[in-house]
């Protein structure tokens, strides 16, 4: 569905070299700190910035050959950019109808009502939650095959986030050929939504794992100095010095549970993995 290989973009203080793939029918998450390169990756694959190398393929087509017709099959949400705030929802309906051949106006109107989005109010007067819902609704209302969502839940309260994620889940359930690439700061969003996850740090992908594997096989081992010295390090990804000794990240939880029953093992979570991969020392 989407494949990017060694996409490079060089700025004065930052360089991106990113490869990732979103298979058909999958929800793929991109996670990383602020400034890690998530938005730059999104902008590159949308053709909003030029790239210094590498290749981007969407629907088995090079991005350079991408036409208006191909863009109709994409639904996009960007965290810091949206419809002109001077327009109202009533203004954007005819715009979307003319831009997308398969814009489903009745679906759009029905969900506007469901989410309580006013049609005659200027978008700049909307709350953060209303703006986010409108962006996602507009992105899914033309039957796209691939959704590209950069921080769609940023700044939302728990209820609004839940409503939005429900909308995305329903979108995926309706057609198994659809795919989503989503980035978020909120790990619980990604844990419940994504089939696989890429972690980006300083412009490089430092981890790619299935979410199920990450949650079942990854773990944080908490050991004292003595236990650390005796520990078999072959399945450790990284470790970090702590006040009590060391915390170590492993992707073979079962091995340590069976062979070191005395050590404390904390179940893997996205937050654990992110923190350890970024702040820990590689082994």
């Amino acid at each position, binding site marked *: 569905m989407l494949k990017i290989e060694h996409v490079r973009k060089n700025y004065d203080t930052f360089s991106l070299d990113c490869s990732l793939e979103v298979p058909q029918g999958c929800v793929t998450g991109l996670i990383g700190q602020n400034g890690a390169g998530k938005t730059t990756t999104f*902008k590159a694959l*949308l*053709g*909003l*910035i*030029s790239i210094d190398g590498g290749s981007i393929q969407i629907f088995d087509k090079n991005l350079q050959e991408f036409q*208006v*017709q191909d*863009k*109709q099959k*994409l639904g*996009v949400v*960007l965290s*810091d*950019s*949206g*419809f*002109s*705030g*001077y*327009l109202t929802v009533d*203004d*954007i309906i*005819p*715009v*979307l*109808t*003319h*831009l*997308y051949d398969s814009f489903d106006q009745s679906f759009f109107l029905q969900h506007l009502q469901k989410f309580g989005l006013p049609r005659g109010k200027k978008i*700049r007067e909307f709350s953060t939650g209303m703006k986010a819902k409108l962006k996602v609704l507009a992105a899914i209302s033309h039957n796209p095959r691939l959704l*590209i969502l950069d921080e769609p839940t940023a700044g939302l309260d728990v209820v609004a986030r839940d409503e939005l994620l429900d909308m995305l889940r329903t979108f995926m359930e309706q057609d198994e050929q659809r795919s989503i690439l989503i980035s978020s700061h909120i790990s619980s969003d990604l844990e419940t939504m994504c089939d696989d996850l890429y972690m980006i740090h300083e412009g490089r992908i430092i981890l790619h794992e299935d979410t199920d594997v990450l949650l079942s096989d990854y773990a944080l081992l908490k050991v004292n100095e003595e236990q650390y010295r005796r520990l078999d390090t072959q399945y450790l990804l990284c470790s970090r010095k702590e006040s009590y000794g060391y915390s170590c990240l492993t992707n073979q939880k079962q091995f340590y549970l069976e062979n070191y029953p005395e050590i404390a093992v904390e179940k893997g979570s996205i937050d654990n993995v992110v923190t350890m991969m970024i702040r820990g020392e590689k082994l």
Partner: protein
Amino acid sequence: MTGLLIKDFRLLKVQKNFFTLIVFILLGMILFSEDNFFAVSFATFIFSLFSTSTVSYDEFDNGNPFLFSLPVTRKGYVLEKYCFGLILGGSAWFVSTLLVVIVQLTKGAASLTDLLLPSLALLPFMLFLLAVMLPIQLKFGSEKGRIVLIGVIGLIFLLGVLAVKAAEALHINLAFLFNSLSSLSMSALIFGAIAVMLLLLLLSLKISMAVMNRKEF
């Protein structure tokens, strides 16, 4: 492109109070003033320049990245801005000219040729304005664009002064030359100027497309 045109017409609605006021001022000028030429030029330039304002509206609050993630090409966007400027400016020119003609003919103040020629003479200026303003707006944005525009206007003024000085040095009386032109040769001159400005507008379109293709959002 239709979707983008609709968006820009909807943005026009944002300034509806301003444009309603303009329309009333124009009606006042046409009905009560003798200087109809000014009313037509005022309407034509104000409306055609709204095209550059929509570029600012698009840029407002970092709107461009999202806009260009929609099924819109950079070339299509530029083309739409030129079309929008031509549609708005052309419509304003047509309607104001029509009103002037109706009012003046009703008053029996002037002949149709005397009314139409000054109006027609505005069209090359409108095309020139669009050809200069749009690439500047697209390249530099509204803040820097204003400074660049002042520079460009200064340069054009300087070239005009130089042309007049050169004509004086060659003992050519430009005012006499224009006054001695017949209506027929004057209209030929105007249509010639329109043709030249259309070519300039095409060149400007090419430049704007190149500017947009290099832009990073």
